[in-house]
């Protein structure tokens, strides 16, 4: 059994590595998928011939494509992600400066969406077909129907401009984190609350819930210990699959709130055709998603004994 278990993990990790390779290839090829000379794309049409040649030299653009990839990827492993064309500084340094705010934003957004979504899902299931349940449905549809950039602007207008409770954009302490996090978090909360309700209803209908009640267990223990634990198992996948949207959302929301993180940096770098930066951020985001999926699988096997013992 242990052997089978190990081989499962070896296969799972190999699959992750293959995905990671594919992802790095896409990030690398971005520059080359755009028609025209990469050097001209990066520097624009008005640079000197010497500058173009320097760029070609710096990024080995005169070499065959596979070799260029090897240069690039070995650089990635050495922590050399190239230099930003805009800032003329190593990309890694620029990313280091901005990754903190982005992780803070994404972390708070995920925290809001997971806790609120799961809580509302449970409450809606327990109080099904009551006003509480209808309210949970209503608010979910409400948040899902509003595009994040519009919600962000609305928040800024009401709470920043009119009520002046929070700064209008930028990163000035904790208060400026609240609304960007809510903008992403509320939408994803809606995304989690519906399936959580469905999972809870399904679990609450199971015989084992009746059986633990028949033992004489308190209702709160029945819900928290037995129903919740079973209903959460499929939610792990839901959350892991949702991560790319959280990241995508944070890109838009960072721009709206002038949040100095990787998202807004990515947008400005795309506009400035700062390809080394774009490549690096894409690679980072993609790796984050790949790793999150691996972690979700790991968590699965911790929570669900059926997977732990058999697969």
């Amino acid at each position, binding site marked *: 059994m242990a052997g089978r278990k190990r081989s499962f993990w070896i296969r799972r990790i190999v699959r992750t590595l293959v995905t990671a390779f594919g992802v790095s290839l896409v990030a690398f090829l971005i520059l080359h998928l755009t028609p025209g000379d990469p050097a001209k794309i990066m520097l624009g049409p008005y640079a000197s011939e010497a500058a173009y040649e320097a760029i070609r030299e710096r990024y080995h653009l005169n070499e065959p494509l596979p070799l260029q990839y090897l240069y690039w990827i070995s650089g990635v492993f050495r922590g050399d992600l190239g230099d930003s064309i805009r800032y003329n500084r190593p990309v890694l340094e620029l990313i280091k400066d901005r990754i903190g705010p982005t992780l803070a934003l994404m972390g708070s957004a995920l925290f809001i969406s997971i806790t609120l979504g799961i809580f509302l899902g449970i409450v809606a299931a327990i109080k099904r077909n009551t006003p509480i349940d209808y309210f949970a449905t209503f608010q979910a549809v409400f948040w899902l129907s509003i595009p994040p950039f519009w919600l962000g602007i609305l928040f800024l207008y009401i709470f920043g401009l009119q009520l002046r409770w929070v700064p209008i954009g930028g990163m000035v302490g904790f208060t400026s984190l609240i609304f960007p996090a809510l903008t992403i978090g509320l939408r994803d909360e809606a995304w989690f609350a519906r399936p959580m309700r469905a999972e809870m209803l399904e679990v609450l209908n*199971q*015989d*084992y819930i*009746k*059986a*633990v*009640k*028949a*033992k*004489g*267990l*308190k*209702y709160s223990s029945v819900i928290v210990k*037995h129903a919740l*634990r*079973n209903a959460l*198992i499929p939610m792990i996948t839901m959350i892991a699959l949702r991560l790319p949207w959280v990241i995508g959302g944070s890109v838009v929301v960072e721009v709206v709130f002038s949040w100095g993180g990787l998202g807004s940096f990515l947008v400005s770098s795309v506009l400035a055709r700062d390809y080394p930066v774009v490549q690096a951020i894409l690679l980072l985001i993609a790796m984050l998603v790949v790793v999150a999926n691996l972690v979700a699988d790991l968590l699965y096997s911790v*929570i*669900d*004994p*059926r997977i732990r*013992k*058999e697969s």
Partner: protein
Amino acid sequence: MAKILEIRDLKLSFETEEGTVEALDGVYLDVEEGHFHGLIGETGCGKSITGLTVIGLLDNNARIERGEVLFRGKDLLKFTERQFQREIRGKEVAMVFQDPASSLDPVFSIKDQMLEAVRLNKKEEKQSNERIVKELLNKVKLPDVESLLEKYPHQLSGGMKQRVMIAMMLGRNPSMLIADEPTTALDVSIQAQFLRVLMDLKNTTNLTVLYITHNLAVLTEICDEVSVMYAGRIVETASIGDVFNNPSHPYTRKLVNSILRADSTLDSLEEIPGSVPRLINPPPGCRFHPRCEEAVDECSRVIPPVKEIGTNHLVACLRR
């Protein structure tokens, strides 16, 4: 002998999208303490509903219209959810369900689930609790208890799971166990093993069992009395001997004659014409009259009262 459970004129309905289902309509049922009482009937006749009423686990759309469910003299219909949880479930009345595959929580080990029940008894000490769990599992004749404790439900066979369920429910030392078709999902050979465990409990404890089934043959092995249920009413209650040797209600007769015996041929087997009526618009009068060969005009108008036709032999039929 004291009666542990007395159900009086219980009427209960369910609100569904298709209409009101009159699931139970005037159920009378007495269960003697320490006896094994069988409750038999076709699928959908209200057997499980009766059991779930006693333990207070009916679905939210159930509406009790009238009647009494007296457990040791106390009317359970007046109990709140909290009273059921604190005073009845597990402690006084436990229940085993039909499908052992889904009756145990898949994410907890057998040990955790057993301990959860035993801990509710307020006996402290972890070690003594574990000892109690092991004794319980031995009691239901489960082999290799030590390794069983660490296992999860999916690693057990159906028969083992059902015995774990019994052990778990006995963990709180209830006076009464409701067994809702506990062997229906098991292979015949495993059924016998399971019934032996119950027989053993019958001989060694004072446990009362309400055994719900649609299989009359199973009841002959273990039950003292049998109540026959048809479309939400009890039509006959008698000792197991009387049910077989002296069945009175036409439905009971049909039921007894439809049992396969070693010497029966297909021709000698009786079948009951028609099917169980839908309980959204049940037949008026005696609910069995559309399928009854002895029915007279009156049967479609008058609800037959319960009559005592012998010692502890009750029947609800106008023709008796």
